[in-house]
């Protein structure tokens, strides 16, 4: 058998990279959703986010297409509020999170959506995520935001909508995949293509060639 070396260069593969920002009240589970999506982990005791965290995750939509998310997880506390525009500036997509057991967190989410629709990139794809869905499976009385209410709002505001659980992973992957599918993939180009390919060094005979690239 001939020796084969995998190089990872797949000539027909399409690749696109997008900036995604997470917004929402503190402790609704933004960081947990990202952790679930990126590392498939969940942590009951998470340190709250300071300023912003940055992570990346690449998902495969089909054999040809991979989408890489550059994820900006922001801190929910008020004192970081003024920083938010720096993170949603240039963002291609946003996930606005609320906690389905906290009615007030949906109000906060709505104000984020409003701000995004006014200030952010006009083509921004926004998804609304009602997180901590696991908490109401056994205790339906804990639910503070009815699914129908949030869904209606999402429809009206033109948002993708999912009820998620970072804890059980429910709908987490689906949320990000749905966003990826809505993104303008025609931008996609082959992965690894460089804008400025290095000028090659010709190896053509040049007796006594020294230094430089190759010692042919």
């Amino acid at each position: 058998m001939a020796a084969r070396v995998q190089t990872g260069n797949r000539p027909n593969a399409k690749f696109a990279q997008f900036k995604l920002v997470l917004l929402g009240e503190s402790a609704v589970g933004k960081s947990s959703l990202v952790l679930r999506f990126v590392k498939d982990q969940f942590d009951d005791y998470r340190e709250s986010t300071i300023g912003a965290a940055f992570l990346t995750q690449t998902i495969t939509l089909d054999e040809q297409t991979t989408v890489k998310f550059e994820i900006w997880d922001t801190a929910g506390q008020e004192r970081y509020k003024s920083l938010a525009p720096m993170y949603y500036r240039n963002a291609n997509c946003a996930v606005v999170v609320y906690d389905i057991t906290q009615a007030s967190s949906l109000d906060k989410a709505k104000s984020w959506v409003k701000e995004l629709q006014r200030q952010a990139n006009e083509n921004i794809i926004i998804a609304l995520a009602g997180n901590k869905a696991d908490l109401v499976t056994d205790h339906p009385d804990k639910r503070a935001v009815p699914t129908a209410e949030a869904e209606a709002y999402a429809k009206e505001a033109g948002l993708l909508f999912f009820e998620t659980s970072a804890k059980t992973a429910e709908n987490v992957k689906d949320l990000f995949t749905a966003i990826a599918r809505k993104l303008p993939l025609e931008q996609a180009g082959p992965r690894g293509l460089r804008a400025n390919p290095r000028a090659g060094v010709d190896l053509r005979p040049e007796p006594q060639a020294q230094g430089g690239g190759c010692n042919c």
Partner: protein
Amino acid sequence: MPSDIKPIDPGTPFRDPHVSVSAEFNTQRHLAREVLGRRDEYTRAKQIRVKTGSWNVASCAGTEKDIKGWFVEGKGISSLHGGLPIGNKTNDEQVEDVPTQEARASKHESTIPINDAYHLPSNDEIDVYALGLQEIVDINSAAEALRPYNDSAPATRWKEAMAAALPEGYVLVAEQQCLGLLLLVYASPSIASTISSVSTTSVGTGLMGYMANKGAVAARLVLGQTTKMVFVNCHLAAGNDKASLERRNWDVSQIIQRTRFSPIDHGNGVMDELGDYIGEEDFAFWFGDLNYRLSDIPGDDVRRLLLLHTRNEYGQDDKTRQIIDRELKLKEDAKSKDVMAGGEAIEPSMDPASPLTTIASLMIHDQLHAQMRLRKAFHEGWQEGPIQFLPTYKYDIGSVGMFDSSEKRRSPSWCDRILYRTKKHYQYWRQQAKELEKVHKRDEEMKARGLEKENAEDIIFDYDPETDGDDGVGDDPTSHNNESNDTPVYQEVATDSVGSINLEYYVSHQRILSSDHKPLAAIFDIQYNAVDAELKSRIYQDVAKEIDRQENEGRPSVTAIFESQDLHEKPSDGCQFGDLRFFQEKTVLLTVANTSPVPATFEFVQRDGVPAIPLWMRLEIRNGPRNTGHNNFPDPITLQPGDSANIDVVAFVHQAEQLYQFNEGSTKPDAVLVMRVYKGRDHFIPVQANWLPSCFGLSIDRLIRIGKDGVRKQRLDRELDKEVVKSSAPRELFRLTESLEKGLSNIASDPARLEVMRQQNLGWPFVCRPIEEIARDDQSLSIREALDTGSPIELPNANSIEEIELLSETLVLFLSYMSGQIVPLQLWDILSVSLVELEKARRLPQDEQLRSHVLDVLSTSPPASISFTFITFMLSRFVTIMAPVDDALDSAGPLLMLSTPGVQDSILKRARGLSLRDDQRGTRKRQIETAYVERFMSLIFEMDDSLKGTRARKISFDMKKLVLEAFILNRKAE
């Protein structure tokens, strides 16, 4: 991971030159303060027993022989007068009786009664022993008092006595001597290890107000990193008169004012700035010969009253008893046997004849309590346990109960005392003092307005610790709530955050005979919160992290993520290239994101002279500006908050030197990159790749030792030197030339392909594409891989023309990178000399003979001659196929013009002549031949760099050309 790579160290801060050492120190202080603020979280309640003892030894010889008995073993308490609950007589019968004891007393041995079974908690039941002695030297001698230094011999004697007395392992944690005063604090091994910040000092208040014949020695220590304790051992002014009383009060105020301890050391180099005072502590113990007497009662009456009790210690016929009775004018009749002894049924404290009743009636006259009530001394929250023992002063030496029988007949009194105070009591007092001040102020105002004066005294003494919020007091055995409220001095304080104290025993050791004072002792149960070192270190780390976080919040910081091109691999902190092969380009994507709220600029920097990025790597910003200058990494990049940069980190080994080193194993393809964030921290990024050995870059001598499975079988190139020679010439060279010839035959049989081939440029196919094109070509890689692993060369995706191109390109690369040429300089020299000789003799042969001559010379090195043959044979095949013999010119043979004088010139001419003729004819065949010859000349022959640009070089060049042509050109033999 190789040992020279250090893992990413997130803790190493970027040392900003503007951050001074003092700023760092401030951070330390800040840290310590914050940790202190969370003290509750890392302290755990601990309970210990502290025993304090005080004894005026009156500079009597032999007193130290008694120290073990009373202070460490808790013996020598008279069951009648020692302060124990009366009626609790244990084994009294066996105890040596008083007369026998007194008769035995001497300064050469302990005066402790024999078989004294009753004793207090002792030995290792006590955790801290604090001993205060007075008059260990004769302070009444002017010589001693005015001595400018301490005589350490008496203190040494006492320390030796204590060391011998204490259980094993007890440690002297504090000592201070000042003339006659000696303070020694010992702790059990487990407690001693938790004691810190020990400081001791002396205050002299004697002659002229500062001489040390009177005054105090004091010690401060910190228990369990939390609880500050102060011990004061004093000897106050003596005397019964009013002036002496006032002097004692003044002494006390002086001691309090003038005692200064060194600043507290909080560890980690953090010290309090200011010294420490009495009053800052959590628990204070003040003991010594306070010298307060009994007022408003004739001393003689006191003496006589007390002797009535002590006489009962002696038998009817005892000399002392007789003396006492004579003095008291008591008849020696049976009735008077127990004059003061009460009936069985009456409670001792209620029994008018019991010592306790007498003691209580005398205590009313106690100056100390009076001064406390009057707030003249020890009013600032100090307390004392209930006195249930006879006055400790003054006895005949050697006597249990004979009060001073000398001329002076000094009035017995409770000169020796042990007081204590908790922070809570002190704070309470201070608060009351403030209230009082307010009341006084209001009084003044009212007075000014002619109003009635309020009774401030009522307010200050309104406090009853029992009803003022303290609980759990009632069941305390030392609480004496039934005492009149004019002794508000020993109420227990309930546990608070500082800790709590419980007086267990307050006793005198009546049966110690070696001094004119009886020693007294108090045992306390103390609860305090001690630091749990493990918890504290955890909290310390927490706080450090938090401070770091706060500090970093406003500083530039970036997050760096590495992703391999293989999407299945998870992003990581380090840069992992995986397997790395010669001429294989591997890329890892580095994403740097500014996660701070301020613009962040970063760059890659060199460290310890190591280049920022090793030569076999390069960094390129995607969609960004090209690297400028000669760097293989970009200029500093500035990111706005919320922005990120994608950087391709490329590993690519194509430089010969690097290739040799990796193959040799002398360097490894790993590194630690330093990514510096301006005004932020440095990121240390480990880079790793696994080098796979390559047949490229080896010398012929090593190549011939490679087995048929390829070079990968060896981990390191130099291991080859130990192998036997496995083939006469490099197998790789054979495989490449053979494959090329096979490919060539395939094409030769396909007219269409043959036509395509013939239309290629001159020199085809022995040309190379640009480096990067080769590097990214999987098919090229698979040829090299086949050579290195000994597997068949297969190029399923290449047509026969491409196959030829790929193989010949690989051949050129192989020869280019080979360490040393096929014909090294030394061999060439031999060959060229022989050729010149032949020419001189005008016998330079034609092709056929020239070829055999050359091979003859080369055969001294079989690998060289065989390799040479492989290549030239293959080239001649190419020439034949690429340009078939087409005209008569070829049969004309070379022109030899040997008529010119210089032999070398003639060679030159011969070569030139050939070229000239070819140029004129312009035949494609000649052009191809020339191109091949020139292409391979430097690949086959080692060039002598020293000849560069000289005429000799040109000659050498022409001779090589001549030799190669003899092999490559298909001239028909004449």
